[in-house]
């Protein structure tokens, strides 16, 4: 099978490029300890290979490098080392409300976000009814986005990337805020997207969602892939390790 996404030996460090104030420039920034959320390498030596028409699930604790991995694949965050190859058009839904502007209406935001994804104005106008229809937001698209709930924003975001004719979708844990029926609708869409030979990389903490959508998966821990293969075995391994970690940590005293 032809690979749609390949990355080899990916290394990424945020450590050296932190935004600074004048004070930090003059006095020097304080040294930080290496922890789960603040370590030298956000990603270290990640290898990935996803075939066309496949769905790939990424698991891991908070701070294990999942979002960084997607950002590096998308190209918004450059890798320090490694090779990335993507075949086809990419669309992403990395964070809730990304690319959206609170003062604009839902409809205006559709134009803005679709344009970020590389759609022409003509194409957006063509697709607009379908996007609104899919989101089920009806006349709420005429309200400014600042009055939207998280779920409404997820609906808007997903509806746009579902209509932008991408070959590769990168989705980061944003569907969790949608209601059960809309989540099911999104899963249905993603299944049909796969059947049309689309490639999907999805980050989620919902094991059920990953199991029902994905063929293969990988588990990240401290920026390294510790487990990969068929998604069921990765999930089983992850839940097993998570339980062990939970047992090792003392319970919170009320």
């Amino acid at each position, binding site marked *: 099978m032809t690979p749609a996404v390949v990355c080899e030996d990916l290394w990424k460090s*945020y450590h050296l*490029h*932190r*935004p*600074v*104030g*004048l004070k930090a*420039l003059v006095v020097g920034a304080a040294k930080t300890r290496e922890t789960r959320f603040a370590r030298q390498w956000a990603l270290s030596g990640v290898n990935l290979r996803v075939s066309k028409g496949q769905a790939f699930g990424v698991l891991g604790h908070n701070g294990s490098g999942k979002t960084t991995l997607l*950002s590096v694949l*998308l*190209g*918004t*965050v*450059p890798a320090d080392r490694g090779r*990335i*190859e*993507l*075949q*086809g*058009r*990419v669309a*992403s839904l*990395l*964070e809730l*409300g*990304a*690319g*959206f*502007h609170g*003062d*604009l209406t839902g409809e*205006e935001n559709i*134009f*803005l976000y679709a*344009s*970020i*994804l*590389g*759609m*022409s*104005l003509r194409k957006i106008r063509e697709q607009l009814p379908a996007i609104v229809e899919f989101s089920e937001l009806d006349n709420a698209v005429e309200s*400014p986005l600042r009055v939207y709930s998280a779920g409404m924003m997820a609906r808007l975001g997903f509806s746009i990337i579902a209509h932008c004719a991408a070959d590769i979708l990168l989705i980061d844990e944003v569907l969790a805020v949608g209601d059960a029926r809309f989540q099911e609708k999104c899963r249905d869409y993603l299944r049909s997207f796969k059947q049309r030979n689309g490639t999907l990389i999805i980050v989620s903490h919902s094991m059920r969602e990953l199991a029902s959508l994905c063929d293969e998966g990988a588990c990240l821990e401290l920026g390294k892939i510790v487990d990969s293969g068929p998604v069921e075995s990765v999930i089983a391994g992850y839940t097993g390790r998570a339980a062990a970690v939970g047992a090792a940590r003392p319970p919170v005293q009320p």
Partner: protein
Amino acid sequence: MKIERSPLQLLEFLFLLARMELKARYKDRVLGYLWSVGTMFALAFVFWIAFKIIMRVEMENYSVYLITGLFPWAWLQVGTISAARSFVANAPLVREMGLAHAILPLSNVVAEMMHLIFVLPLVIAWVFFAGGYGPSVSWAWQIPLLLLLQVAFVYPIALICALANAYVRDVEHLLGIGFLVLFFATPMVYPISMVPEPLAHYFELSPLYALMQSWHSVFLEGALEPARVAYAAGFAACVGAVAWLCYRRFAPRIGEVV
């Protein structure tokens, strides 16, 4: 790989961004446009009282001189400062965009230009009622030329400031101070003839002065000095080259520092 963009698609994207900036500026208020215009006229009125009535500036058509300088200056200042914030203020957008970041500060500069264009009828009306002369035919090419010149002039500066502000957040505050100094160091609310000699010489060297003086001479005399335009354009080209180098060096990491 990645998102393919044609020049046309980029232009459409720029249009949507600029429209977004303008809408955010007027904030959906019916009077949003009037508020921002009113502020400028109030500022002009204050300077008119201070310089014309109290300090007795000897100058014909002083109120026209004020109005036709303040509005282009406002574009320069507001455009640069809002562009400097553009990466940080639109951080989620920057993280999702991947490329073509340079278009964000450009959209601020273009939005402020659109604002000036919307204000032009009022400025021309002011020239007519306060100055006593109507719009001249030559404005039809002089004003568009100056609009283009100012975009070329402001955009590289705005891009450098936006990049710098993404890495060091203090830049937007420094800009406020810088513009305050430049505002009074660029003869614009007083004629350069009032400035004593050694200082006047330095003031005249400022490319900003060349730009503002071009606006003044168009509205006051209907004339455009090629030398000044060339000087401002040359400066814009130099800063443009620097901005391009900065962009190539610093833009790739912009997604992770904002």
